[in-house]
């Protein structure tokens, strides 16, 4: 039975994906697209063969998807895993089509059941874990946590030299990150539940009481301009990892919550008990922020 697994890596989050295939017991091959240091880190995990491709200057990893897919397809692994990284997923999509694999997203576990692969995926926004079975090859997008891999004897790195497709980086510019936000211990953030620009002072007062940095959701910075753009949290803004993230009047759209996935504790204040943010927050107050914030400030100062 073919038990080989390949793992696609193009960014720093890769340990969980690699750890997921190790219990399957077959030969593991990692394909690393990126700098040599990344390939060396993967090699140090001693997980098996490592193929390394360094994109040329001005060429994104996606430009190699077609040629990499052909290499993966020629090896015909039973299991192919990518991280959520956009470039990894593009390679996965190209290889999966050539392998005629079942492509499953949001995967948190893999196992054998006889000759079948069992795929555990987070479904319905993570509300349940569904187990799927197939007798064919599987392409999985990993959605679990990162893990700590024990150091093993490093595997040799085999360098790939491939021609890229016509995709180029025309320009690359830094996006400003507000000073203090990326390493803040506590962050108070607000959204459209705050009704007027003058009311931002109320939220700022809570941030000061908690010794927290002030942040906001994207529409507050982008559409309303009530806070500088360098202070919005979300998919395309800041990704922060505070011990406490307090969301005030924020609905909890997935685009916003992506920016605080690394927060230790999320607390939310929202007047709508069905607000989406209460599905992911650890703690919440259902109430009018204009009444709750003064009460919180008073309580903190007691």
């Amino acid at each position: 039975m073919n038990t080989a697994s390949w793992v696609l890596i193009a960014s720093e989050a890769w340990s969980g994906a690699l750890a997921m295939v190790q219990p399957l017991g077959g030969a593991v091959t990692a394909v690393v697209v990126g700098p040599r240091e990344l390939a060396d880190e993967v090699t140090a995990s001693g997980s098996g063969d490592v193929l390394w491709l360094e994109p040329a200057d001005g060429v994104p990893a996606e430009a190699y998807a077609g040629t990499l897919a052909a290499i993966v397809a020629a090896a015909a692994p039973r299991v192919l895993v990518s991280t959520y990284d956009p470039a990894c997923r593009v390679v996965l999509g190209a290889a999966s089509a050539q392998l005629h694999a079942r492509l499953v997203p949001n995967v948190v576990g893999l196992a054998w059941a006889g000759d079948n692969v069992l795929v555990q995926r987070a479904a319905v926004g993570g509300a349940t874990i569904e187990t799927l079975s197939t007798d064919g090859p599987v392409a999985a997008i990993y959605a679990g946590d990162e893990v700590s891999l024990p150091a093993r004897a490093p595997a040799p790195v085999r360098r790939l030299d491939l021609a890229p497709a016509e995709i180029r980086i025309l320009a690359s510019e830094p996006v400003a990150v507000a000073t203090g936000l990326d390493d803040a211990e506590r962050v108070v953030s607000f959204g459209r539940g705050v009704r007027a620009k003058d009311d931002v002072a109320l939220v700022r007062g809570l941030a000061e009481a908690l010794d927290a940095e002030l942040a906001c959701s994207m529409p507050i910075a982008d559409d309303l301009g009530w806070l500088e753009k360098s202070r919005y949290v979300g998919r395309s803004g800041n990704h922060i990892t505070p011990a406490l993230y307090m969301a005030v009047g924020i609905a909890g759209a997935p685009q916003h919550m992506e920016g605080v996935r690394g927060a230790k504790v999320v607390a939310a204040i929202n007047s709508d008990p069905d607000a989406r943010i209460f599905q992911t927050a650890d703690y919440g107050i259902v109430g009018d922020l204009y009444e709750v914030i003064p009460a919180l400030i008073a309580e903190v100062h007691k």
Partner: protein
Amino acid sequence: MKAVVVYKWARNAADAIVRTDGSIDWRNARMAAGEDDPAALAAAKQIAADTDGTVIGLTIGDGDASWALARGVEQAVCVADAPNLADNGATAAVLAAAVRYIGDVDVVVIGDSKQEPGVAVALAGELGWPALVGLHSASMPAGQLQAVRRTVGEQQTLSLSTPAVLGMSAESDADQVPGMKELLAARKRPLTKVTLSDLGTPPVDLVSVGCRKPDSTPSRLFQGEPAQAAAQLVAALRAEGVL
């Protein structure tokens, strides 16, 4: 330039019911516009505007296909009997067959859904076209397809050749809700319905063998008088060691 915008290609998971044993009741979850569909439509329209080209809508399943037609798309194709599939590759194979059915397509623009992040990339794989996903915007100035993406601390502008697949990622829940005039106009715009047998793509899926609730603790919600709720929250946060 002929651009296809793929929309309403997934069920609305918010309408699914997860039972206490973790099993899923999908009966009330219809196909719905995804959170990234408005961004995909905006990009397709921009590409068409830059090239004096056209945008064709493509949708699958039992949802109301007028979503794009009421937002300025002149014609659409619907694969009405396409089932909901766990396999993102099988969904992509249906979409790829429909793109080939439309014919002579230069760019396919689709939402890079967080819930189904394999469909956009598998669609590119099925078509054998280059792809970029996680994009913020796209355009085609001076005949060159360009896309912008923002990652943490960086914004990149990229170019790519056509034909290509672009996966758009919304930055907010922004959607321009059409007025009555647009809704009425949508009813008159041509909608071509095709079937899986027309496309010759019988989908094969994985077999679901069970569900379980994840190992997580639900939110602790405090309600009632603001002072009392505030005291409870502050006490809980102090117990967590984050205050």
